[in-house]
């Protein structure tokens, strides 16, 4: 009993140590470390926006309409006199959650169906790939624009639009990895000891192809955030008065000549967020698969 227990803890510590090893390698790389820190700050400030924001996002101060950045309003105020800094803080909630939710949806869908298609092969594979062909024939962001047009603007619809735009690609890349992995003999071994199809697919194959998919998904979050902001910018994504960065940027462009801060700060938020995620993702890739790096 005690022996089993120590065994269990030993096992746990081993799994943990694998995770720790990856984390250690990320922290060893200064660039990805910076990315991680910025990302954590952004996430925390989005989560605790109500505590951190100096003003309410709807509070209009008629004396500070188009106020330039100052100590009172670090990012200045918009045309209704609302504090831009507070709005940018809240904006992180939309962009980040949108990016992460869309990424997780895409990841889950891609893994589940990609493995199914890749492992099944034959007719199933053929049909699925033809469907992907059609979906991929329309460039992802164009598809997102189309879907947004149809469904209308809003948070949920934007997530859906961004997810669908990337689905075919993620199924296809998972499938490609499956096909490569399918050559490995340990899958035949699993078959020979009576593992069921589901066991082979999800217990044996999945853990071996999930690492690159996690990296890919992480890297895709940045693109998704940027794409969603782009949708909002052209008036199809999340709409004002919600404080979404792209929408704020879009509203700010009208006054670009006299009050450029209205467009600079939301844009900066997007750029910094995307950069942080990309830097972290890059480090994650090197950490998970050291052989990719030199």
């Amino acid at each position, binding site marked *: 009993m005690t022996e089993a227990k120590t065994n269990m803890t030993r096992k746990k510590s081993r799994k943990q140590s694998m995770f720790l090893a990856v984390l250690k390698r990320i922290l060893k790389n200064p660039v990805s470390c910076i990315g991680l820190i910025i990302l954590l700050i952004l996430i925390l400030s989005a989560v605790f926006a109500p505590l951190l924001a100096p003003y309410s996002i709807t509070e209009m101060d008629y004396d500070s309409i188009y106020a330039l950045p100052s100590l009172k309003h670090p990012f200045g105020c918009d045309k209704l006199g609302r504090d831009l800094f507070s709005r940018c803080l809240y904006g992180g909630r939309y962009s980040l959650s949108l990016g992460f939710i869309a990424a997780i949806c895409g990841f889950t869908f891609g893994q589940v169906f990609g493995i199914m298609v890749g492992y099944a092969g034959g007719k199933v594979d053929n049909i699925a790939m033809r469907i992907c*062909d059609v979906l991929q024939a329309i460039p992802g962001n164009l598809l997102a624009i189309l879907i947004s047009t*149809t469904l209308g603007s809003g948070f949920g619809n934007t997530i859906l639009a961004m997810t669908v735009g990337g689905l075919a690609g993620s199924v296809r890349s998972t499938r490609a990895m499956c096909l490569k992995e399918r050559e490995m003999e340990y899958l035949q071994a699993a078959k020979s000891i009576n593992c069921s199809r589901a066991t082979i697919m999800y217990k044996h194959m999945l853990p071996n192809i999930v690492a690159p998919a996690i990296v890919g998904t992480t890297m895709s979050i940045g693109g998704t955030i940027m794409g969603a902001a782009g949708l909002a910018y052209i008036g*199809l994504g999340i709409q004002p008065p919600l404080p979404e960065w792209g929408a704020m940027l879009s509203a700010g462009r009208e006054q670009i000549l006299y009050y450029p801060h209205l467009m600079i700060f939301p844009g900066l938020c997007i750029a910094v967020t995307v950069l942080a995620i990309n830097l972290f993702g890059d480090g994650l890739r090197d950490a998970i698969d050291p052989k990719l790096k030199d």
Partner: protein
Amino acid sequence: MWKYVTRRLLWMIVTSISVAILIFTVMYFVPGDPAQMALGTEATAEELNAYREMLGLNDSFLVQLGKYLYNTFIRFDFGTSYAYHTPVMEEFASRLPRTLALGWICLIIDALIGIPLGVTCALHRNSIWDQGFLVLAMVGVSIPNFWLALLMVMLFTNKLHLLPSFGIGTWKHWVMPIIAGSLSGVAMNARQTRSAVLETIRADFVTTAKAKGVKAHDVTYKHMLPNALIPIVGGIGQRFGSAIAGTVVIETVFSFPGIGTYMMNGITARDYPVVRSCVLVLALFAAVATLLTDLAYGFIDPRIKAQYVNYAAKKRREDQA
């Protein structure tokens, strides 16, 4: 080889038709009434109905779809814009070349600057230059193109009065859209080239070349690069679609009279024929780009070329088995 190309072209037609059906179906469910948009809120029910009848909007879904497909693929007629009352084809004649030119120029700049940069980084890997440039490339990938566009407008138009911020006419009108459209591509090409070259550095055939006494320079350009080019070409092909679609946003920022602005106007005006045709045409060009990159693979890599040659024969045998 030609058999393969023919097959691919045929398959492209099938895909285009499927895409057309998909777009039509999606657009069919778009809320909003084109008649209402065209005639305004003052129009009576009879007027609206007559207008809808004229546009064929009162037919059933299948009839509309059939007519649309017939017109598009048999008569090559993209219909008439609800808003401008001009044939879509006519607008395309002037707008399409601009969008394609913008897209292609961006893509060429991506390759011309990105690939040499990537090779240089790989050869001086882990030097300060390499590390610094990697971070810089990451920044380049992370800046939203529409924001970059606005920043440039602020600087070059509003502050320096060097470049016009919208419209078309002189070469100056092209400068900012091209920069905004190619920055991320340059960065991505450079990063991808770097890792592709690094991948080949350890390849056995590179050791063979060294053992033959080939000069370091020739090892890089005659042995490593041609092999590294294979994934790079793939990356460029993949990005072509999004590059073309990306021009939609850039065109909107600069009011650049191409397919993108046309489409955005169409979306606001519920101008179905315009939106449908724009998406279809952009998709078609993306498909052509994919085909071109696949063929380029064949030129670079004899193994893939051999696959193309055997493709038809293989398919036939598979069908029999």
